């Protein structure tokens, strides 16, 4: 059984932001619920109010703005992303990350923004979004601000979001169209599982970026590499940027070993 809470499904963005401003940390926003409802059930979190954001206008929008790029709304699900022909054509790295996230039914509910707002170190969307230079548009009754994902995560399950703020949309820049990339995730089983480590390698116009999940308190971006770098240099830069721990899924040493292994494999595969 879930512990008791009140439920609100505001019909407009301003109503939602007003509720969040009023209730702050006592409220939790419900998007796909695939983390929230599990955490409420386990007693990890005990919100007094659950605010469903799927009923406000355009919440599930996934649109293209030639000036900005791909705009992902707060209720856009992982499978919405995967079913979008533009995403598959122009942002294949996002599609690869999305397809590796959980199972089919969960992808029908889980949202792209939920996956980053939860700020799990093993977020599958974060490595791709970091490599593509995406940013979060963070909104509250106080106004809006734009936060690049390199500045978004502040610790394990911690972000720059204040208690009254939501990520209203993610913008993946139009300039990243044409990026070639791959994402590889180590799991305990072939089917759906949380990642033990995940590595994305993305190449565009001679520059190379590497995104890593589950190998530091926050998802990590290694920028500044070029096609002209050697794979050993890429491995060295990545290992310097990560700081994995030993936990229930594996040891620190195994994580470091697999980060290196995936960087080496993907460096060649994406050439």
């Amino acid at each position: 059984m879930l512990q008791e809470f009140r439920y609100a499904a505001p019909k407009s963005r301003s109503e939602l932001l007003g509720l969040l401003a009023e209730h702050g940390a006592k409220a939790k926003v419900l998007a796909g619920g695939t983390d929230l409802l599990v955490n409420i059930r386990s007693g990890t979190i005990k919100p007094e109010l659950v605010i469903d954001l799927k009923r406000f206008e355009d919440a599930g929008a996934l649109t293209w703005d030639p000036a900005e790029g791909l705009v992902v709304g707060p209720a856009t699900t992982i499978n919405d992303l995967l079913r979008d022909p533009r995403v598959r054509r122009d942002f294949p790295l996002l599609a690869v990350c999305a397809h590796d996230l959980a199972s089919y039914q969960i992808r029908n509910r889980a949202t792209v923004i939920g996956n980053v707002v939860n700020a799990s170190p093993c977020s599958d969307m974060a490595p791709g979004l970091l490599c593509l230079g995406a940013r979060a548009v963070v909104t509250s009754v106080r106004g809006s601000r734009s936060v690049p994902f390199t500045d978004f995560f502040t610790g394990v399950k911690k972000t720059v979001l204040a208690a009254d703020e939501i990520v209203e949309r993610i913008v993946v820049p139009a300039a990243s169209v044409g990026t070639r990339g791959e994402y590889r995730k180590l799991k305990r089983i072939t089917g759906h599982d949380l990642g033990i480590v995940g590595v994305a390698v993305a190449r565009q116009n001679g520059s190379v970026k590497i995104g890593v999940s589950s190998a530091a308190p926050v998802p990590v971006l290694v920028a500044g590499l070029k096609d002209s770098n050697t794979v050993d240099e890429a491995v060295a830069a990545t290992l310097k940027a990560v700081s994995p721990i030993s936990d229930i899924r594996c040891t620190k040493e195994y994580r470091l070993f697999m980060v290196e292994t995936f960087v080496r494999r993907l460096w060649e595969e994406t050439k």
Partner: protein
Amino acid sequence: MKTIQVTVNGKHYTRDVVESRTLLRFLREDLGLTGTKEGCGAGECGACTVFFDGRTVNACMVLAAEADGRTVETIEGEAKDGKLSVIQEAFHMHHAVQCGFCTSGMILSTRELLHSNPKPTVEEIKDGLEGNFCRCTGYQQIIEAILDASGQPVGEGGLKHA
């Protein structure tokens, strides 16, 4: 409490629900539709798979309150006029059911898979049903049933002789 109006298997219901009630508990305990099972309660096993506005979801991770104005389909809606669906027939034929606990979810996930991909390969079947665990039949008979239900020769991919 919150009053919700929801259509389940084509039938319209108006019910008062406690806000924290899951869709799964609502279906099983308030509507008596116990074909949908609770396995893990955390989105791992898929025993509680139902259609929610035309897409499969884990009903243990949906609030009944979210279903207000929405459409839900459960395993009880699979057979029409007392006649098993093609997928149910195939599961029956191929002994894809042992204890039956995963079967409701397996059948609904199969319907979703065949809707978007009418002739899936064995790999595509495994991928489409990755969110549904079976702990007793083994997956081979389930895969054979799905191949058969999609009009493909059973044995493709070496299943018969694996």
